[in-house]
């Protein structure tokens, strides 16, 4: 990010700060560091969080199976650590590394912003997306090839994610 405010702006604006304090954020004695979440997130039920986590892993698994790739092949082709692909697909509580989300989104040609939202359960507050997540994860199973029903569910979900890639 490049910051392009002239010296005159600082001359004028800093003067207004005077002797006021400027700190923001919850003091540490009120919340455990490393587990900071907003009130909105705290209000979400664990079921919702679980479903969203599951949706990301399930989507990656469906996309992989649709291309008839093994986990190892996907990891190699998308340049993601194979252990991470396994965790993404099979551990609903696993929060993937952002680089891996980026790599997988690029590999599958998925909207990156939407996939990022889906991968980070703390950011999904959209009722439509929640509903789509539930519909999609309801079709999750572990069979080797995608059934027609799974393929339809995946296609609908991918199309929906495409509409969620903006603001």
């Amino acid at each position: 990010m490049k910051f392009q405010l002239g010296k005159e702006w600082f001359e004028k604006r800093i003067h207004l700060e005077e002797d006021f304090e400027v700190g923001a954020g919850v003091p540490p004695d009120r919340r455990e560091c490393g587990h900071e979440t907003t009130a909105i997130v705290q209000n979400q039920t664990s079921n919702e969080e679980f479903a969203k986590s599951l949706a990301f892993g399930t989507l990656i698994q469906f996309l992989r199976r649709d291309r008839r790739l093994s986990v190892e092949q996907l990891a190699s082709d998308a340049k993601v650590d194979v252990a991470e692909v396994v965790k993404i697909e099979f551990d609903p509580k696993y929060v993937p590394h952002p680089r891996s989300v980026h790599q997988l989104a690029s590999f599958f040609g998925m909207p990156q912003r939407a996939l990022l939202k889906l991968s980070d359960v703390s950011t999904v507050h959209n009722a439509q997306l929640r509903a789509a997540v539930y519909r999609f994860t309801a079709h999750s199973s572990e069979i080797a090839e995608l059934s027609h029903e799974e393929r339809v569910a995946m296609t609908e979900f991918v199309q929906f994610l495409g509409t969620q890639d903006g603001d």
Partner: protein
Amino acid sequence: MSSTSSEVFLRHGVSGQLVKAELHDTILQRHLDDHRDHWNPLIVAQGEQHGHWDWEKKWSHYSAQLSYQSFAIECNGQTQGLMIVNTMKRCRIRQQANMHLVYVEYLEAAPWNRRDIPRCVRYRGVGTVLIAAAIQLSIDEENHGRIGLHSLPQADTFYRQKCGMTDLGPDVLYSPKTPLRYFEMTKAQAAAFIQ
């Protein structure tokens, strides 16, 4: 990790002159080292309101998530302010409800720049520069300058009166024991701030 730095200015606490500073668009290890080695001893000694934030732990937690970004201000070879923001939060003001904004998770000035600690202030303007950085990021993210934050009690006046943010009152869900006030900045307020 690399960062982009921009030239900014702070006001020297004694001379009153503007001095050059650098705004980095990510927190680097040397900023965390400064916090540990130079900020903490003063903060612990004073025992003030946000005394024990562990920025190293915070940044190790947040830096792995793409939706978070950090900033640090350096001046005269020392870290003068730190900030972590989240770019995936939503607005609460009715006129912009549910639109994305840049949410300031944490903002802290070095203890020698804070007025609640009885010592000579070295540099003024850390809060102003960091809020301007949050606004700029919001603009870059196509959020039109919209930002939000929960203010520490002693900073309410700064955000309400000096930044011109809308005060949405105490947020009991966010910090139940001592509710912090939630402030939000609209596109128009952001434009007024950086003009």
